[in-house]
């Protein structure tokens, strides 16, 4: 329930931001010049969380390139080292992930100006990792059994949708965040030993996982394009209708 309310809050912030940005604009020009950029980015919440919780390290970076004012291609990857323990078991997962896809900017060119981005990323992710249960305890009528599951290599894959925002804070330096909704296609393991954590995906015991990413991007402009601004059709007046 806490998770759902958290993500609802994020979606609300997204909607508020769009309406905020849409208001108070002056008459747009006929064309705008948009710089297309190659962006090199790093996700920062993973390292920040690692300082709070030393059991979970997640580092992620990516490169994306604008194809035009609306679409961009994305390729990213990262490393994850996850540990979890509770009274009756301990779990370790360590591995890499890569993901690739497209970014779609929903902002109009005259609003984005190549500096702002409000849209969504659609990605396909692959996760290669080792999973191990060094200890688990099982109790029933016959007594207590302590056992372990040795390390095994797995290869899972998933789909991700990442609506979010980016804004250029300084020249060629952008910050942004996204809400990540992921759908597991295959965990890499059978139904009995589903991995508790898949690098890049999150909790493997669920088919759908959610997350929030916050990232810094360094932009390298490589081309400028002129984009025609589509103006809204004025409402037909009574006089026009008579003619």
């Amino acid at each position, binding site marked *: 329930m806490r998770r759902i309310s958290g993500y609802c809050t994020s979606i609300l912030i997204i909607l508020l931001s769009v309406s905020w940005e849409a208001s108070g604009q002056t008459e747009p020009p006929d064309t705008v010049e948009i710089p297309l950029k190659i962006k090199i980015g790093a996700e920062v919440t993973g390292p920040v969380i690692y300082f709070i919780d030393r059991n979970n390290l997640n580092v992620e970076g990516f490169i994306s390139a604008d194809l035009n004012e609306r679409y961009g291609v994305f390729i990213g990857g990262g490393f994850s080292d996850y540990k979890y323990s509770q009274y009756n078991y301990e779990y370790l997962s360590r591995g890499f992930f890569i993901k690739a896809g497209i970014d779609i900017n929903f902002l109009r060119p005259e609003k984005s100006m190549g500096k702002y981005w409000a849209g969504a990323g659609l990605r396909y992710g692959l996760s290669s990792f080792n999973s191990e249960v060094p200890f688990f305890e099982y109790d029933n009528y016959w007594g207590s059994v302590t056992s372990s599951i040795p390390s095994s290599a797995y290869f899972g894959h998933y789909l991700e949708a990442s609506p979010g925002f980016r804004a250029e*804070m300084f020249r060629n330096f952008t910050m942004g965040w996204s809400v990540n909704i992921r759908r597991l296609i295959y965990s890499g393991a059978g139904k009995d030993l589903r991995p508790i954590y898949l690098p890049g995906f999150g909790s493997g015991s669920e088919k759908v996982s959610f997350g929030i990413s916050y990232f810094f991007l360094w932009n390298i402009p490589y081309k400028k394009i002129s984009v025609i601004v589509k103006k809204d059709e004025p409402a037909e007046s009574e006089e026009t209708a008579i003619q």
Partner: protein
Amino acid sequence: MTGLKKNNIAAIIIAILLIIVSCTPEACFEETVAKVKVPFYLSSTQKAKAPDNLTIYGLNTGTDKIYADSKSVSPAELPLDPSTDNCSFVLVINGVSDTIVVAYDSYPHLISIECGYTYYHTTGVLSYTKNIIDTIIVKNTLVTTGNEENFRILY
């Protein structure tokens, strides 16, 4: 567009708080022990009928009983020992004793992140005495934490 910049700062704080909250595991509310589910049927009518009085305990387990003079128990649920490959149970049905021996394989199974791991079993050879038990029909060899019927005892 300064709004986006301001939102970025707010989003940092919200993102960190949400991630910390979302990573907190919840309590385990699921069944954690896989048991052999054994409903009782009268062999004369072939209809389901719980014994008037039922006691079940594992052979050589001392005084610890799974059911002790219990009434209206059906299905009975029999846990298996994952540290060995067979279990023997003494069933006292309406005052008459029988012994059943179940052979099985065990393998670990993840229940959930909250509950951890359990053992599931695949049953093999089943043998039993026939003092009050007429027949035992194997319905499903896979023993899980679900509700599937495994053996049907006709008495």
